[in-house]
C-alpha cells in the first residue's frame, strides 16, 4: 500500500478555509464563467460591456450637459461624467449582483466543500473584468476628447484597490446577510441609488454647499475615491480628496470607515459561513 496521508480533521465549511490556491482557482474559474455568460446569447456579446456605460453616459450627458446645463463650470465635465459612471457602475453592479450570489449558487454551496467567500468574490471579479474593458474605452475617449495624458494616470491602481476592497466588503456583507434576511435585496437597491446621488458622480464636490461638503467626504468613502480620481485623471487643478475632506489627517476618517466596513464584512461572513449551506 502506498504511503497514506496523515488523517486530518474535517472542519466543515468556512469563509476562507480549503487552501489559498484552491480559493484563488475557484474564484478565478467561477468569475470567468460568470463573465463569459453575462452577455451570452446577445447579438453584440462582449460589446455590451462597453455599450452599457456608454449609453448611460450618453443619456446623462444630454440631460445634464445640454438640457439643464449643469456641468458648464466643471472642467471636462463630459469626461468626468463618463469616468465616474464607469467606476460607480462597477461598484453598484458588482455589489447588487453579489447580494443574491450565495442563494443563486445554492447548487454548488450545498454540494461541495467550499470556501464560502469565493461566491461573492467571483461576482466582484466578473464585474472587475467588465471594469477593465470599460476603462480601456474610457481612456481612449479621454485622449480623443483632447485631455493630455499625465503621469498621475499611472496612479489609477491606487484608486482601484480601495474601490475593489470596498466592493468586496459590501459583497461579502450583503450576500451573507441575504441568506438570513431576504429584505437585504430591496434595501440595497434603495441604498445604492442613494449612494449614486450621494457621491460626486453627476457633479463635482465643489458643487456641494460648503456646509455639507466635508461631511459628505468623511462619511462616504466612494466620494473620496471619485474626487481623487477627478484630480489624477480629469482635472489636475481639482482639489482632490485630501483637501476636500478637510485637509491632512481628516482623510483618515473615510479610510478608517472603509476598513471598518471591511472588518465588519469579514467578521459577519466568517460567522455565517459554517451554516450557510444549511440555511439556503
Amino acid at each position, binding site marked *: 500500500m502506498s504511503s*497514506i496521508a496523515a488523517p486530518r480533521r474535517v472542519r466543515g465549511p468556512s469563509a476562507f478555509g480549503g487552501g489559498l490556491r*484552491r480559493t484563488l482557482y475557484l474564484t478565478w474559474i467561477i468569475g470567468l464563467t460568470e463573465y463569459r455568460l453575462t452577455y451570452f446569447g446577445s447579438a453584440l456579446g462582449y460589446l455590451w460591456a462597453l455599450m452599457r456605460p456608454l449609453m448611460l453616459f450618453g443619456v446623462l450627458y444630454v440631460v445634464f450637459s445640454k438640457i439643464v446645463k449643469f456641468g458648464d463650470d466643471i472642467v471636462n465635465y463630459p469626461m468626468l461624467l463618463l469616468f465616474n459612471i464607469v467606476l460607480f457602475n462597477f461598484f453598484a453592479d458588482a455589489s447588487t449582483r453579489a447580494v443574491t450570489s450565495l442563494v443563486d449558487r445554492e447548487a454548488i454551496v450545498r454540494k*461541495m466543500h467550499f470556501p464560502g467567500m469565493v461566491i461573492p468574490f467571483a461576482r466582484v471579479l466578473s464585474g472587475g473584468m467588465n471594469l477593465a474593458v470599460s476603462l480601456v474605452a474610457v481612456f481612449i475617449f479621454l485622449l480623443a476628447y483632447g485631455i493630455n495624458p499625465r503621469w498621475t494616470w499611472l496612479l489609477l491602481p491606487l484608486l482601484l484597490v480601495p474601490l475593489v476592497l470596498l466592493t468586496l466588503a459590501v459583497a461579502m456583507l450583503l450576500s451573507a446577510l441575504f441568506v438570513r*434576511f431576504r429584505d437585504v435585496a430591496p434595501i440595497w437597491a434603495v441604498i445604492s441609488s442613494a449612494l449614486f446621488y450621494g457621491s460626486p458622480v453627476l457633479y463635482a464636490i465643489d458643487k456641494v454647499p460648503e456646509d455639507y461638503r466635508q461631511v459628505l467626504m468623511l462619511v462616504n468613502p466612494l466620494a473620496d475615491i471619485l474626487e481623487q480620481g477627478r484630480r489624477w485623471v480629469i482635472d489636475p487643478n481639482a482639489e482632490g480628496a485630501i483637501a476636500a475632506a478637510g485637509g491632512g489627517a481628516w482623510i483618515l476618517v473615510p479610510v478608517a470607515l472603509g476598513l471598518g466596513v471591511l472588518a465588519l464584512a469579514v467578521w459577519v461572513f466568517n460567522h455565517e459561513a459554517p451554516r450557510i449551506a444549511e440555511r439556503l
Partner: protein
Amino acid sequence: MNGRATAVGVAGVSKTFRIPRQHIMSLKERALHPFKRVQVTDLHALKDVSFEIEQGEFFGIAGRNGSGKSTLLKCMAGVYRVDQGEITVAGRLVPFIELGVGFNQEMTALDNVVINGVMMGMSPREAQRRFHDVVGFAELEGFLDLKLKNYSSGMQVRLAFALMVQADADVLLIDEVLAVGDAAFQQKCFDAFHDLRERGKTVVLVTHDMHMVERFCQRAMLLDHGVVADIGDPPSVARRYLELNFEEAGEAEVTAARPGDLSHGVAIGDVWVEGQDGRRADSVGQGDPLVIRAEIESLAHIDDPEVGVTIHDESGAVVFGTTTRELGREEEPFQRGDRLSLRIALRNDLRPARYYVDCGVHEGTHRVAAFRPRATDFLVFGNRAQSGLVALDHTFDLERHPDRTEAATTP
C-alpha cells in the same frame, strides 16, 4: 482487513438542525418583536454516530429516507459543520453528492470539465490535461463542440461520472449516482467501481438500494433515525434493513376497499399472507413457507368461475401467478351467497424485496367478476446473496479435476 490504516474516522458525531417554524424572518418582524425568539423545531439528524472506514475499503451507508445518511455524507464532505464529535479523513476526499455539480448548460464539455476539476481541487491546468481521459471514458469524443444543453441527460451523466472516476481522490463519497444512465453505462460504472477497489481507493457509497450495497460493499452500516442501527457485513445489514422497513410498515395497515377494485357479481374480501406459524404476517423469511389467503363471496350466479392470484414486485413485474384453470381444474358454478376460502401454499423462493398480491375471479375466460389489485403486500427478508427475480433452490458443484492441461500448469 485488519491492520490497515483508517481512511475515514467518525467519532461521536451529532448534528441537529434548528428548523424555524417560519423559514424566513424578515427584518420587519425582527424590528417589531425584538425579544420574541424565533420558534424552532430541533431535528436531530445524527445522534452520536461513530464508525471507522479502513483504507481501501468499499463501505456502504444505507438507510431509508430521513435516516440521516445524506446529512452524514454532507458532514463528511465538509458541507455541513458537525455540532459534536469529530470526523477525520486521510488524504483527499472528493464528494459526489450530485453528479455534475456546477455544470453549466451554456458551455462546452471542455469548459465544464475544467470548472468541475477546479471544484474538485485541481488547478485549471491539471483539469485541462485530464480532459482527454475524461472524454474518452465518457465516450463523448464526437461531441466536444456541443454545448452541454445539447447533450442528452445520459451523455451528461456519462461526463459527470467520468469526471468522478478521473478525479484521483483518495476517498470518494458517492451518493445515489447510479440510479441514472442506461444499462451499458451502468455496467461501465460497476467496472469502474471494481477498478477503484483494485487501486486501493476508499469508496463510501450512500444509498437506499440494498442490492447495490450487497453487490459492491465489503462492509456496510445501517442508519435509522440518526443512529447506527447496524454495522457489519452487507448481507446481515441488508436483512436488518428489511426488518426495519417491515416494522415501520406494520404500523400503518390499510385493508379497506380502494379505488381500482372491481366487483361484478363476486366480492373479494380480506386477502392476507400467513407465515411459518400460520398467523398473519407482513414479512416472510426467504425459504420459509408462504401462504396466501383470501375470502371470497359470490353475489350472483357465476358460471365456469376461475379464481387466481398473482404476485408482482414494486415495478409491476409478475414473479408468479396461478389460477384454478391453469391448474386444469374446473370449478362448479358459484351460487349467490356462496362463501369461499382461498389458500395457496408455496415455499418462499422470492428474492428479498416487497411484493404485492393481486386476486381475481373470472367468469368463463373473459368476463371479470372481481379483481383486487395489490390486495395485500408482504416483505421478503433473507440473506442469500443471489441475483435475479427469484431465489431458485439449487445445488452448485464446481469440481476440480486432478489432471491439469499443459497450457495451465503455471501457478
